[in-house]
């Protein structure tokens, strides 16, 4: 174990970054015993984690970071779980300020949405899904859920709790361990990405540089990634119809407000926001039944983020199903019709976000169950 290697070096200062993410609960207990022992020996230990329980069980002092700023510095005995959660997700005052900002931007109201019949199977229907991560550990543990047309179903949670693996599975980029998943009744497990897109899945990926775009390609070439086999772009002998493709790109640039010098600009010359708008535009032209969007606004400027959220809501109002994965609390509260909070591969809860306070969401994201939170 790496940790043991570090310990054997007889250090005075030990920094551990999410040390428990690869350990079993039993091993975690052992580790913490060891850490306490080290503390008794007079060593300094810095523990970086998002798990509230861990924080409270071993530490003496807690520093809370949010958006790269230090927002809290408290003694552990004085810190209640609620207080930590509030510090992690932002203050009540800020929350109200955000709410005002959002109404200023006139989000389409929820009344517009159609009634969703939750008793029926959704567009996406997932049952007892088990997914393994890259290292062979179980990243998604026995999940079952439905996403219906006309709703935004959001999976919230701190990154690295199985969301990426789930999304990769649903879009054909990962092989399932067990369970079932269907889109409009058709199986999508172990099916190639191309077939899955044909079933009407659009995917706005988490990593737009690695997955969403071929960076050295031009805007036009990127705009047809995944749809390049469409009749409208393909002439006789599989020739690409450059004229039509360029026209299509110009339409995308107009409709999605993509700032670029032209269809032949390399994708890497675009700003992050414009790259993301290009991906969103491309995916929406697929006329999808369900949109799987993973952290679609991460790292974007306010304008681009707002635009993309607006677009997602429009698609929702058009009766599309939207599966949104996000770690951004504001996004959860502003967008989702239903939210599931994911922690270590499981859903902590699944409900209407209006029924949850920010603190409760923060607690759940940190892995603290309801009963414990009340106590």
């Amino acid at each position: 174990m790496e940790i043991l290697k570090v310990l054997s070096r007889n250090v005075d200062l030990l920094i551990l970054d999410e040390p428990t993410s690869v350990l079993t609960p039993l091993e975690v207990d052992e580790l913490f015993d060891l850490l306490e022992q080290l503390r008794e020996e007079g060593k300094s230990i810095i523990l970086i984690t998002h798990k509230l329980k861990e924080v409270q069980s071993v530490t003496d002092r807690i520093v809370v970071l949010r958006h790269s700023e230090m927002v809290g510095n408290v003694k552990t005995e004085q810190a209640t779980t609620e207080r930590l959660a509030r510090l992690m997700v932002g203050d009540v005052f800020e929350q109200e300020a955000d709410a005002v900002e959002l109404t200023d931007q006139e989000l389409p109201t929820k009344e517009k949405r159609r009634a969703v019949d939750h008793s029926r199977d959704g567009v996406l229907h997932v049952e007892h899904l088990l997914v393994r991560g890259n290292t062979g550990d179980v990243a998604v543990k026995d999940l079952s859920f439905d996403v219906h047309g006309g709703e935004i179903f959001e999976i919230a949670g701190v990154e690295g709790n199985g969301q990426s693996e789930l999304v990769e599975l649903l879009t054909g980029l990962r092989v399932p361990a067990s369970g079932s998943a269907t889109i409009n009744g058709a199986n999508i497990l172990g099916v190639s990405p191309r077939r899955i897109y044909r079933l009407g899945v659009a995917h706005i990926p988490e990593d737009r540089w690695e997955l969403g775009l071929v960076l050295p390609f031009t805007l036009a070439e990127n705009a047809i990634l995944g749809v390049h086999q469409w009749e409208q772009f393909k002439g006789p002998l599989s020739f690409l119809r450059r004229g039509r493709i360029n026209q299509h790109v110009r339409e995308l640039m107009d409709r999605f407000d993509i700032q670029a010098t032209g269809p032949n600009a390399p994708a890497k010359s675009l700003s992050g926001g414009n790259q993301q708008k290009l991906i969103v535009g491309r995916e929406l032209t697929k006329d999808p039944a369900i949109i799987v969007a993973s952290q679609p606004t991460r790292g974007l400027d306010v304008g681009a983020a707002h635009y993309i959220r607006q677009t997602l809501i429009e698609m929702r109002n058009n009766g599309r199903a939207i599966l949104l994965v996000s770690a951004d609390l504001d996004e959860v509260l502003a967008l989702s019709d239903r939210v599931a909070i994911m922690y270590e591969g499981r859903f902590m809860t699944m409900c209407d976000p209006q029924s949850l306070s920010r603190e409760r969401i923060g607690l759940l994201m940190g892995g603290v169950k309801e009963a414990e939170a009340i106590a």
Partner: protein
Amino acid sequence: MRERPPIGSTRLLRGVYRTLTGLHPALESVLAAVVGLLIGALLMYIWGFNPWKAYIALLKGAYGGSYEISSSLSRATPLILTALTFSICLRAGMFNIGAEGQMYMGAVASVCVALFVLPPGVGQILGLVFAATAGALWSLVPAFLKLTRGVNEVISTIMFNWISKWLALYVTIFLLADPARSEKTLSIPVAARFPVLVRGTDLSYTLFVSIAFALVIYFVLWHTTFGYEIRAAGLNPTAARYGGINSKRTIFLAFVLGGVSAGLAGATIVMGLRPTYAIYGGGGMPQLLNMGFDGMAVAMVGRNHPIGILIAALFFGGLSAGGRVMQFYGSNPVPLEMVRIVMGAIVLAMSIPELIRIFPAAKKQGQEFVGLMRRLSRRGPKEEEA
């Protein structure tokens, strides 16, 4: 106390870095060629030759008149095709070093035309078809090994070059040998050869085969969905997978196209040079030897673009044609090997900007590799416990 490097020199280094990485690709190639020629000049000077005179001889020998230009073009003809082999596969993200071997197979296959009596016009086409098929089949084996067993294509294609070389020699000596002159194979009859384009030279109509194929490859790569998929999978395999592109298919396709190209290169040599030309088994297959490897240099200088390759092949063809003149010129002639040194120096100079550019990426990859090993070692004891 440790001294910091002076700020002036770091700024200079950064400036050099920016200049070298920001150059237009075509300019980079020209710069590399110039650097290669300068290194050659330096070596000639050290060994007591007159570089100026030698290069004038080389230039005259390469482009000094219609005969010289013709022989440069005739040497460029197969180089264009073997360069395309390397470039097509590189565009798909594969290092196909096997042009040499695929070219031998193509050459041997095209000699087979000599076994039949054919109406005029058919022989040429049949020869090209034979050669293309043989080249493609030869390149399919490494492709299959890669796709089904994950065998590294660099290693398998290099090994296949050797197999192919001795196989070709065997066939030329024992199966296709000319009964009258046992050191060479049967010659393809004149009616089935590509006619000479400029009288008295080696340049034949096969030049147009090369140019046409380069243009075809250009259109395939940049104007069809096949080429689009090949390039996407080569540049970013994960994004290609996300875009529903089957990278196994694109690799397969690239190897087939590359094999066809290298096979044709063999045919252009056997069917294009003067009427008596055939593969000389005894002499270690002159004319064919190294054409595949030189093609890789051409591909690099041509920036793996068919049009760039056409220009680069003319340059390299000129080097090798002019080099022959250079070694007979003046009182202190420069040996032919010097030309190969220049070629080597150009290839090295080509790689400098690329090296500088990939250095940060390579460093990052190295770190990721170390990280992966650490993670694996972290997993090790855990599994033992279980």
